[in-house]
Structure formats: structure tokens, C-alpha cells
């Protein structure tokens, strides 16, 4: 059926390890103004705002209220999804499809530099059986990595290749936090943080924000010469307790991508997608998610990378922006992938532009080991 919602504006900040030279509200105001300029709308034309941020990462109760003034929500309809930016994008899409909004601004912000990340993510685990064990995103990710790699014979070098590929391609991304060519050896020699994850296997934490402007079909045609249409959305939540989950099975991502592909009329993602931006907080996750997204058969993720299929110029470039190895703004990560997907479809991705992009996939996660999965397909 005819797509009913389009992205008409997008913006992202430069991702940096520490943006405390300016306040969160200044960062967010700048990125919102940029997105509005990109869409050619002023504040009055935006009739709905959805923000995404998480109280414990912001160190404040109802931290969404600090953004109200700088996202232009005074006397407007505003809501906040406490999770990944793609959740906020979904809320915006639904508001437009529900007919209560014509132009929705979606904004996501997070400052990794404000708190100690592993101590914060410890509070995501249930306090009864898991939290007091000291688990966090790193140790849970290591359990998933070790299980996935042992199940499918994937080596630490395969994972190091992911980091090398992403940092090589991050050179082309002006927003990337890390822009340094590295070698496999450099990754292999970085200190082991949680077996088998080494320091350089981990996407570096960063500060940043990004925004997209969604518009109804009729409004999008008026506003934008090149609207990027929302073709498919899928979201799914896997089990929380680590012992009650197939950590390499990825049922939630399979379910979420199946739904998004079905809506977008995609039956063979490898052929029909032109680029994918995937949220991988650790190197092994890019291999695991690309397999579960159906880009290749199970266990083939590493080969697909080695043969250059997922590099810029390959059959299906994955993370030409450098992905999160170029900077991990935590709850902003998913929406940043969507911004990159929009730039690719519009042909405005500069040096990291993939040729002839008509269908792009953006992927986001919430919780540990990709417990919550978001998949969005956008196109021209």
C-alpha cells in the first residue's frame, strides 16, 4: 500500500567523548534547529514532539522536562519514550498514522560522559535475581559473544575485522568520534575487558543528539523535494532473564525484521536492500545482527564481512558511517542509524554514500544483549 509517513528532515551532532563545553539544552536546540531547517519547517508547523532519553542516564527524575523548551514543545503535544530513539520515531509515526499529527519532531539525546556506564547499566537488570551479581551491558554482552562465537565457530579475529572495517569507513563520516585506521593486531592486543571482548571490540561511549522530522503523506509532498518514506517498521522484546534466552538465537530480531520486511514487501533483504545501518555496541553484534536480519545464512556473518560484501562498494554495505565503532551515544544510537539511512536514500551521505540507494535499513536495540529490537526500512 502507498507509504503514509515520510522523513522530511534529519540532523545529528558530531559525536564526541565529552561535550560538556556546552549544556544538553544547547546541543539539543542546535540539532533541532538544523533538522527543522533541513525540512524547511518552522516551529509553528511542528504539531507534535517526541523525545527519547532515560532518567538514570541523565541523573534526573523526569529528565524529559529539561528538553521541553528547546524542542519547541511549550504549549504543544509532547511525549517521551524512555528508551532508544527508534522507539520515539515509532511513537511519532503512529501519531501521524492516527491522524493526530501532520508534522512530528523526534529528538534523542544522551551524554555518556555524565556517568559511569557499566554502573548505570547494572540498574537495568532485575534487582531480585540478576542485579546484585554485578551484571552490566559489558558482562552480559560477553556471555552472548562467547556463546554465539562458540556456536558458530567465529574467532576473535573475525570480530576484530568488524572494528577494522568500521573504523576504516568512519574516515568518511564527519560526525564520527573516532577517525583512525587501525589493524587487526591493534584490536587483538587491546586489553581483555570481559572474555572474549577486548577494549577495542567495544563501541566507544560518546555524547550526542540527533533529530528527524516526520510528515504525513500529503504534508511531505508539499514540504520536501526528496521525502524519505517509511516503508516498514518492526519491534520486538525478548526475554529479560539471561538464563531464559537463546543468546545467539535472536528470536526478537528475527520477529522484528520479519514484520518490517513484510510491510516493506521485501522477501530477499540481501538483494532488495541497498544499505543497512545496524546498532552494534560490540564488534560481535554486527556479525550476529546481520545474520539474524537474513543478510546471510547463520554463521556466515564473518565470511560475508571478509569477502567485503558489507564494506562500502560491497553487495550490501553495513554501517558505511562506521556505525557505533565511530561513537556510541547509547540511547541515541538507533535514531542516529535512521538519520544515516535517510542521508543514504537522499544521496547526501558524502564520501560514505553508497551508490544508487533506494531501500535502507536502520536497526536499534534497548536493554542488554539486544533484548529489545527495532527495525525500520526507509526508501525513496
Amino acid at each position, binding site marked *: 500500500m502507498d507509504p503514509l509517513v515520510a522523513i522530511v528532515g534529519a540532523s545529528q551532532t558530531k559525536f564526541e567523548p565529552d561535550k560538556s563545553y556546552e549544556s544538553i539544552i544547547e546541543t539539543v536546540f542546535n540539532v533541532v534547529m538544523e533538522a527543522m531547517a533541513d525540512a524547511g519547517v518552522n516551529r509553528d508547523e511542528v504539531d507534535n514532539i517526541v523525545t527519547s532519553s532515560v532518567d538514570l542516564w541523565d541523573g534526573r527524575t523526569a529528565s524529559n522536562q529539561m528538553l521541553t523548551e528547546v524542542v519547541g514543545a511549550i504549549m504543544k503535544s509532547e511525549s517521551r519514550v524512555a528508551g532508544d530513539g527508534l522507539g520515539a520515531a515509532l511513537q511519532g509515526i503512529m501519531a501521524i498514522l492516527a491522524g493526530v499529527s501532520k508534522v512530528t519532531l523526534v529528538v534523542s539525546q544522551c551524554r555518556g560522559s555524565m556517568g559511569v556506564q557499566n554502573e548505570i547499566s547494572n540498574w537495568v537488570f532485575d534487582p531480585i535475581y*540478576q542485579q546484585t551479581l554485578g551484571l552490566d551491558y559489558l558482562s552480559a554482552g*560477553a556471555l552472548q559473544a562467547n556463546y554465539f562465537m562458540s556456536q558458530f565457530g567465529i574467532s576473535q579475529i573475525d570480530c576484530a575485522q568488524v572494528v577494522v572495517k568500521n573504523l576504516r569507513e568512519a574516515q568518511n563520516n564527519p560526525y564520527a568520534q573516532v577517525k583512525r585506521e587501525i589493524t587487526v593486531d591493534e584490536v587483538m592486543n587491546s586489553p581483555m575487558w570481559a572474555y572474549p571482548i577486548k577494549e577495542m571490540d567495544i563501541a566507544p561511549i560518546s555524547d550526542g543528539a540527533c533529530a528527524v522530522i516526520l510528515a504525513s503523506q500529503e504534508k511531505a509532498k508539499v514540504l520536501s523535494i526528496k521525502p524519505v518514506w517509511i516503508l516498514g517498521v518492526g519491534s520486538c522484546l525478548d526475554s529479560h*532473564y539471561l538464563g531464559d534466552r537463546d543468546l545467539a538465537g535472536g528470536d526478537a530480531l528475527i520477529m522484528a525484521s520479519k514484520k518490517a520486511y513484510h510491510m516493506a514487501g521485501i522477501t530477499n533483504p540481501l538483494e532488495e536492500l541497498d544499505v543497512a545501518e545496524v546498532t552494534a555496541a560490540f564488534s560481535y553484534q554486527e556479525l550476529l545482527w546481520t545474520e539474524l536480519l537474513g543478510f546471510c545464512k547463520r554463521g556466515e556473518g564473518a565470511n560475508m564481512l571478509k569477502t567485503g560484501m558489507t564494506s562500502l562498494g560491497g553487495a550490501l554495505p553495513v554501517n558505511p558511517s562506521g556505525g557505533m565503532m565511530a561513537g556510541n551515544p547509547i540511547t541515541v544510537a538507533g535514531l542516529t542509524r535512521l538519520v544515516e539511512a535517510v542521508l543514504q536514500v537522499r544521496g547526501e551521505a558524502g564520501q560514505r554514500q553508497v551508490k544508487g540507494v533506494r531501500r535502507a535499513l536502520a536497526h536499534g536495540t534497548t536493554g542488554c544483549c539486544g533484548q529489545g529490537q527495532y527495525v525500520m526500512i526507509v526508501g525513496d
Partner: protein
Amino acid sequence: MSDHMGGMVLHGKIDLPFSYSAGKTASRFFVELRDHQRIMGKRCPLCRRVIVPAQLFCKECFVETDEWVEVGPEGTLVTFTVVYHKGNHHPKNVPLAYGIIKLDGADTSIVHLLGETDVTKLEHGMKVRVVFSEKRKGHILDIECFRPV
């Protein structure tokens, strides 16, 4: 008045106690650890899965579990990691080993600490056995760890 404005940061501290109700089911699970050094699962009447650690309801069938079933004390190590990067939230100093253990008689696995922190001595699928803490107070850490058999 110095005009240069740059990067002022306010250092905020949070220092708050939180006290969580374990609930009837988890309380019984902890009492069994504390008083009888037993690991108990609970069975779902519909799918018959024995869920460990015990949960009030089966998330797939969305009905309350009913029958208490003792599991373990041994099981197989599904996966593991050894954490070397220090964190204030850890229950003890690094290196700190975690494992996911499928206990004999259980249909789901339990995530917990491993007694072995030399990664070369850990293998997927190896047999492990529960070690209970000396001092127990009705807490998940009444289990000290799981050790390779």
C-alpha cells in the same frame, strides 16, 4: 568577571537506598537456599517447563506456575565469561567469572558467578556444581558460585 566560559561541570552525587520486595515466589526460592541449600524451580502447568530460578508465572503461557521442583546441584555450563575490567557494582574484585548454567532437571538456565576465573579452564558444556555460601541470608548470593566438577 572572566569572560571565558568553558565546560563548567556540576558534580552531583546520588546516595539512596532502595529496598525491593522479592515477592512470594522469589522469597520461597531464597528461603530454600538459606535454610535447605536447595535450588528450587517452579513448573508451568501448561507447557510443563521447570523455570529456574523460580518465577511466579510462565511468561510464554502467562499462567501462574504451581509445582515446586528441586533441581541441580549439578548442571552444564551453557556459556561463560571472565570480567577483568573493574566496576564498583561488582560483588567482588576482578577477575570475576560469570556463567549461564542449565541445572539438571531445569528447563531454563540460571546466571550466576563461577568459582573458576582462569578462562583456559572453562569450556562450554562442562559439568559444574553449586557451592553455597557459609553465611546465608535469603539472597541470590546465598549461592557463592558454581565450580567445575
